[in-house]
């Protein structure tokens, strides 16, 4: 067999073929990457948080901290129980509340409220928080995450939807933009 000519018509056509396939592959990466990155898009530029009601105010007596649950606003029909999200509601007085995420600020385990000692305790790595959500002890670097809230009529409404982590600390981004005084 003779050495194939580097500039033969066939090798040029092969290169053209490679180029066409490469181009199509590059075009196809756009929908693929877009599809894979689709969870990044929040709705209406506000991230993933939306209004959600925790129910009427009389469920939360003054001076007490109670567990409330809400259906996550970004829910799929097949989410099942995972879309039921708990949170701790502390009613200080009058229109003043604190709504804490259930997730420990350390690594997200569910904190439990102990009214007798006035502490939230985490079962995983031993974090503890005071009644106002501030850090008491253990590995967390900060206090509990808080959802911004507002009182609408006789309902307690929070902005929620995203898993609170150090990157997305519940709705505190919204708090910074617009203080929610209730």
């Amino acid at each position, binding site marked *: 067999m003779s050495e194939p000519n580097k500039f033969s018509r066939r090798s040029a056509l092969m290169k053209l073929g490679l180029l066409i396939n490469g181009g199509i592959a590059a075009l196809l990466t756009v929908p693929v990457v877009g599809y894979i990155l689709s969870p990044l898009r929040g709705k209406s530029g506000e991230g993933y948080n939306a209004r959600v009601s925790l129910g009427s105010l009389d469920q939360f007596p003054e001076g007490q901290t109670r567990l409330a649950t809400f259906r996550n606003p970004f829910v799929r029909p*097949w989410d099942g129980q*995972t879309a039921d999200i708990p949170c701790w509601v502390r009613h200080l007085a009058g229109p003043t509340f604190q709504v804490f995420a259930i997730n420990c600020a350390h690594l997200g385990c569910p904190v439990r409220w102990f009214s007798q000692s006035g502490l939230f*305790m985490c079962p995983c790595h031993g974090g503890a928080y005071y009644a106002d959500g501030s850090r008491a002890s253990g590995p967390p670097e900060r206090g509990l995450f808080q959802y911004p809230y507002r009182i609408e009529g006789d309902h307690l409404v929070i902005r929620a939807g995203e898993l609170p*982590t150090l*990157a997305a600390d519940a709705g505190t981004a919204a708090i910074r933009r617009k203080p929610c005084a209730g």
Partner: protein
Amino acid sequence: MRWIESLCDWMDRRLQLSGAIREAALHRVPRSSASWWYVFGSAALTVFILQVVTGILLAIVYVPSAAEAWNSLQALNHDLTLGWFLRAMHGWGSNFMVALVLIHMVQVFLFGAHKYPREFTWIVGVFLLLMTLGMAFTGQVLRFDQDAYWGLGIGASITGRVPLIGGWLVNLLLGGPIIAGETLSRFFALHVFVIPGTLIGLVGLHLLLVLKLGINEWPMPGRVVRRETYLKEYEELTHKDGVPFVPDAIWKDLIFAGCILLAVAFCGVIFGPFGPTGQPDPTIIETVPRPDFFFLWLYALLSLLPPQFETPFLLIAPLIGIAALLLLPFLSGEGEKSWRRRPIAVLTVLLLAVALGTFTKLASNAPWSPQMNAWSGSTVPQRYLKDRSPLERRGALVFQDKQCRNCHVLGREGGQRGPALDTVATRLTPDQLIRQVLQGRGNMPAYGKNLSPAEVTALVAFLTTLHPAGQARARDASRPVALEASGESSSSTRP
């Protein structure tokens, strides 16, 4: 039998593979490598095949939906004939596979098999380890129960600590804003398609490299690897003192792999399948999430690291670890292979083994976690209440009621987050106790806002009774001196 032979012959004339297969089977390996120390890799491969088979069998029933996954596991455990056994085999197979991969890696490292010319085999092996751990974690998620749910929360919380893009990464990991249906689908795709596919490809490459480069010879102290001479020496060795892989070496692989399969089945029958624990319902907060065995060390580490080191450690240490493993064959590609001449290698393995073992042991009883029910579940030992004053007994009540017991042992029961208090009166004076209770310190929260003065008085009265008979209470040595001095000075100033 004749027709089988002719069928094989017919096939081979078309496939033309028998030559390659015969060559692979009969390739010569150093006699010293046909050893019981060289069976772990093939055993890991055998368990991987077991995982693929049992995994496919489970997948024909399992429903990768957040709403139904848990129910389908229950059906597997209880309704389907021997479904529980397949789940048990798959679960135990996972543990065995991680263990075998780790043992294989340690053996390879101690025998110097990562050195020239097998650097790339080692690098592929490092990725095989990462994929195996990835399978273990994603598999734990598919067992969609409370541990899986909160384990995902931990994974997301760690991811969220990545600077700048942490939030995006969390959304990518979870497939949305929060742990839900799409999270499970995502992990299902990873566990069933992406990672196993990668694993199969990498295993093929790993085996091809072993065939091409030959299995590592038994390391002899003093026989040094040099790039210039090694290949020639190895060829001579396999010619002079080599045996065909089949049957001289493979029989040990086969017997060991068979024993491992038996052990997996034995564990499956005796200990049964793993979970699922409670339903993945986040509103059930009465839960104590725990990771699977091979991640327990990480659980301990996350509890024991000082808070300020945690984020840097979590983000940087894995990168350093993986980089060190990948660079290892380039940093020590030549020289001694024998562990007898490589003390630092041996010490490194020992240090890692002791550290991982210690953390795993610690995590199995997790002394850093408060015992959430100790305050209402554990009683105060009778001897601490006998012949005590009403105030002291009232203090014992405060002690229980304020959940001190969740973090403090009394009479061997209670949380171990804080120190045991059976002898606290010998360590702290009443004044120090009051200060510690009101202001907290170290890991202890301050109780100043949650205790009335009367409760503090009672509590401290109770705590000061906690000392062994015959051992004195702690006392402030300066106090009598100060009192005496003030008494003297007051008497001297008075005319």
